C-alpha cells in the first residue's frame, strides 16, 4: 500500500483542487482529507456520509463555584493565563486552557472538574471517486495532529479491507503539528507551490520539514506563468535539491469555475491545464511505485 500526501507550506496554492483532480485520475484508492482544521475537499466530492464518529481529545478544567474557596493557587500555577478572577470568583477560560491538569491536581478543595474535551467529528463517506475519510475539528478546537493520526489509521484500514493500493491525502498548510502528523508513514509528499516570494519561501520550509522527517518530495508549480523569474528560481531550487518538478500549471480561472460547480478540473472539457495535470499524475504514480 502506498500513501501520497499533497502539501504546500503556503495556503491557497491549489492543494485541494489538485487533490480532487488526482482523486478523479487515480485507480483504486482511499481518499483522505487531513486538513481537519479547514477541510475543503468535500466541497468538490460531495460525500454521502456512511459513518460518523465523535472525536474526543484531552480534557479541560472547569471550576465548581460552590466548592472553590477562592485561594487563587490555580491561577498562580497556570502557565497559560487561563484562570482569572472575574469578580464573582475564579473561572477557567476554555480558549486558553491547555488541559494540563495542574490546577486540578493542586486545588486544596478539589473544586476543579476535568471533563473530556469534545473536539470534533470524523466520517467515512462514499463519493463518485471512491471512499473518503474526513473530519471536522470544531472551530477553535485543538489537537488536530491527533485527529490526523485517527484519519490516517482509518484510511489505511479501509484500504486494506477493500484491497486498495493507495491512500491519497490532502494536507494542511504550514509546517506544524497537523503537517508533521500527516507526513508520518507517507511514501511521497507532493508540494504545490506558486511563483511568488511567499510560495517559494514556504516551499523551502516545507521541503526542509520533509528532509527532517526523511519523506520523499516532488513539486508542482501552479500559476507558473504569473512570474517567469520566480518560476525559474523555484526550478533552480528543485534542481539543486533533487526534487522532481512534476508539472507547471497555468494561472487559469478554470479551477475556480470547476469549484463553483462542485467539480474537479479534470471533469471539465479537456484543457492545457488538465493535460498537464494528467501527466503529473502519471509521474506521481511512477515515483510512488504504484501499479507495479
Amino acid at each position, binding site marked *: 500500500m502506498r500513501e501520497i500526501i499533497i502539501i*504546500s*507550506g*503556503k*495556503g*491557497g*496554492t491549489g492543494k*485541494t483542487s489538485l487533490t480532487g483532480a488526482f482523486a478523479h485520475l487515480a485507480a483504486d484508492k482511499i481518499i483522505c482529507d487531513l486538513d481537519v*482544521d*479547514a477541510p*475543503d475537499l468535500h*466541497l468538490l466530492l460531495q460525500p454521502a456520509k456512511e459513518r460518523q464518529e465523535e472525536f474526543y481529545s*484531552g*480534557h479541560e478544567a472547569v471550576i465548581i463555584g460552590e466548592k472553590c474557596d477562592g485561594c487563587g493557587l490555580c491561577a498562580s*500555577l497556570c*502557565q*497559560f493565563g487561563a484562570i482569572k478572577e472575574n469578580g464573582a470568583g475564579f473561572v477557567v477560560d476554555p*480558549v*486558553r486552557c*491547555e*488541559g*494540563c*491538569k*495542574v490546577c486540578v*491536581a*493542586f486545588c486544596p478543595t478539589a473544586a476543579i472538574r476535568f471533563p473530556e474535551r469534545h473536539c470534533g467529528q470524523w466520517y467515512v463517506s462514499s463519493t463518485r471517486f471512491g471512499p473518503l475519510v474526513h473530519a471536522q*475539528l470544531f*472551530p*477553535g*478546537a*485543538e*489537537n*488536530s*495532529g491527533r485527529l490526523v493520526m485517527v484519519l490516517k489509521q482509518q484510511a489505511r484500514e479501509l484500504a486494506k479491507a477493500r484491497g486498495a493500493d493507495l491512500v491519497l491525502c490532502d494536507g*494542511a*498548510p*504550514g*509546517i*506544524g*503539528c497537523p503537517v*508533521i502528523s500527516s507526513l508520518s508513514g507517507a511514501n511521497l509528499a507532493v508540494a504545490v507551490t*506558486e*511563483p*511568488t*516570494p*511567499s510560495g517559494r*519561501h*514556504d516551499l523551502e*520550509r516545507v521541503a*526542509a*520539514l520533509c528532509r*527532517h*522527517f526523511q519523506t520523499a518530495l516532488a513539486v508542482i508549480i501552479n500559476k507558473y506563468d*504569473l*512570474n517567469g523569474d*520566480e518560476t525559474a528560481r523555484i526550478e533552480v531550487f528543485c534542481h539543486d535539491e533533487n526534487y522532481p518538478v512534476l508539472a507547471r500549471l497555468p*494561472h487559469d*480561472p478554470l479551477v*475556480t469555475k470547476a*469549484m*463553483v460547480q462542485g467539480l474537479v478540473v479534470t471533469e471539465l472539457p479537456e484543457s492545457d491545464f488538465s493535460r498537464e495535470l494528467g501527466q503529473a499524475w502519471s509521474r506521481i504514480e511512477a515515483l510512488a511505485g504504484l501499479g507495479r
Partner: protein
Amino acid sequence: MIVAVASGKGGTGKTTVAASLATIWDGPVLGVDLDVEEPNLNLFLHPVIAGSEMAHMTVPMVEEAKCTYCGACSELCQFKAVSVFNQVILIFPEMCHGCGGCMAICPEKAISPGQRELGEISWGRAGDVGFLSGRLRIGEAMSPPLMRRVKARLDQMLAVTGGDAIIDAPPGVSCPAVNAVMDSDVILLVTEPTPFGVYDFKLAWEAFTPLGKPMGAVINRAGLGNDAIYRFCREKGLPILAEIPYDRAIAEAYSRGRVIAALSPGLEATFVTLRDEIRDLAKPSRSREAAHA
C-alpha cells in the same frame, strides 16, 4: 489598538492586507508576523532587522540520582512527555506543553527546568513601520508557545513606542489561529468569494465569534466565484469593510513582492478607507450599539 488579520482558508490575502495596512497607517504602527510556521510579512515589508533572539520554552530535565520512580510526574502529565516504568524515567521534551506540573508535583525535587528551542524572534523597521516576527524551528510541532513569546515582546515594544499593531495571523481556525487573534482589539477576516473561501470563512467566523471582539470582512479577488459570501455577511450582520478586485495585475505585483496599496491611487484609497473603518469598528460605542441592535 491591535488589529489581527486572519482568514480560515490560506492564500486569501492576509499578508497582502496586513502589509498594505501597515504602510498606509497614520501614526506609529508595528507589523507583526504571527504566522510563525510560514512567516511572509518580511517578504513584502523588507524590514532592516535590528535584532533577533532564539526563543525557548521550559521543559523537564530529570536528575535521576534523586528520582524514586514514584510515578507522580507521569501520572499528572497529560501530554506523554514523562514516562516512568519500573526503575526507568524517560523525558520526551518535544511532547511537553510547558505546564510545569511535573516539577511542581515531584516530591524529591528531582525535576528541574531545561529548555526546548522553539524558533527565532526578530525585529526591526521598514521605513516608518516597526517590524516583529516569529519563525518556528523546522520540526517543532507547536506554534502557540512561540507565538506567546512574540506577543510578550509585542507588549514590551508597544509599551515603549506606543501606537498600533497589525498582526498577520496563520491560516486555519484551530489553536494557532485562535492564539494569534485572541489578544487583539479588532479581527479582520480576509477571504475570497469562492466555495472554499466561503466555507472556511464561516468556520473562522464561528471560531472567533465567542471571543466577543469586533469583526469585519475584507473580500479579496472580488468578482471571482459567486455571491455566497455577501449573503453570509449580510445574514450575520458582519460588515464588509473593503473589496479588492480580482485582477491579474494585482496577482503579478504580489508575485514580485510589491505592497499592493502602492500599486494605484484607487488601491491606496481602498486601504485608507479600510483603516478608517477599522478605527470606527474598534470604538467602544460602536460595539455597544451593535450589542443593542
